[in-house]
């Protein structure tokens, strides 16, 4: 079984992305194969240099950097969505694989789930 957790909402404005990340970490904690796909406005999770001291929320960059350590297999970013938001590999957090065909990626996984 392999699960793809999809995040299509930006960070901070809603909690759905954080709750999606918790789902991925839980699967990994149970030694289940899990990857993350960022698409739509969700690719903004991956923008480098997020400084959250002004909004009383923890930076999601730290959460993301912990993903490989917790056993999340891959973090994919939808190529088209990155282009729409002006995100280039240099402007993104480390460890992200570009996904030129996210529909195909979903079909390659047994489960695909959103957090909300």
């Amino acid at each position, binding site marked *: 079984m392999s699960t793809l957790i999809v995040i*299509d909402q930006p960070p901070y404005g809603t909690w759905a992305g954080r709750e999606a990340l918790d789902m991925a970490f839980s699967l990994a904690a149970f030694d289940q194969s899990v990857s993350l796909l960022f*698409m*739509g*406005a969700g690719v903004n999770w991956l923008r480098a240099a997020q400084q959250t001291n002004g909004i009383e929320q923890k930076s999601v960059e730290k959460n993301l950097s912990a993903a490989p350590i917790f056993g999340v297999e891959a973090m994919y970013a939808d190529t088209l969505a990155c282009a729409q938001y002006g995100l280039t590999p240099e402007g993104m957090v480390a460890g992200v694989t570009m996904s030129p065909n*996210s*529909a195909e990626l*979903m*079909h390659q996984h*047994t*489960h*695909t*789930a*959103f957090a909300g």
Partner: protein
Amino acid sequence: MTSIHTLHILNKAPEHPRTAECMNAIRSGDALLLTENAVLALSILDDQAPMAQVYAIASDAIARGFGQSGTKATLVDYPAMVKLTAQAQHLISW
């Protein structure tokens, strides 16, 4: 009953960004089930219908004034939805 590769279950109105994401992810051999506000797509779906069989929950369609729109989608009840989820190899709830 034919097999379905992925059953896409969509419950968002046509304007919702996830509707476009769902439509982009549909491939040959998949099926699309419209529930809740997604049945409003029945007034918009036409030539550009996806390459998949389209179903819609009848009670949701009728509640929203689409009792007669059986041409663009097969109206189904919840027992049929259960069957579709059993037939499909994969499920995605958008």
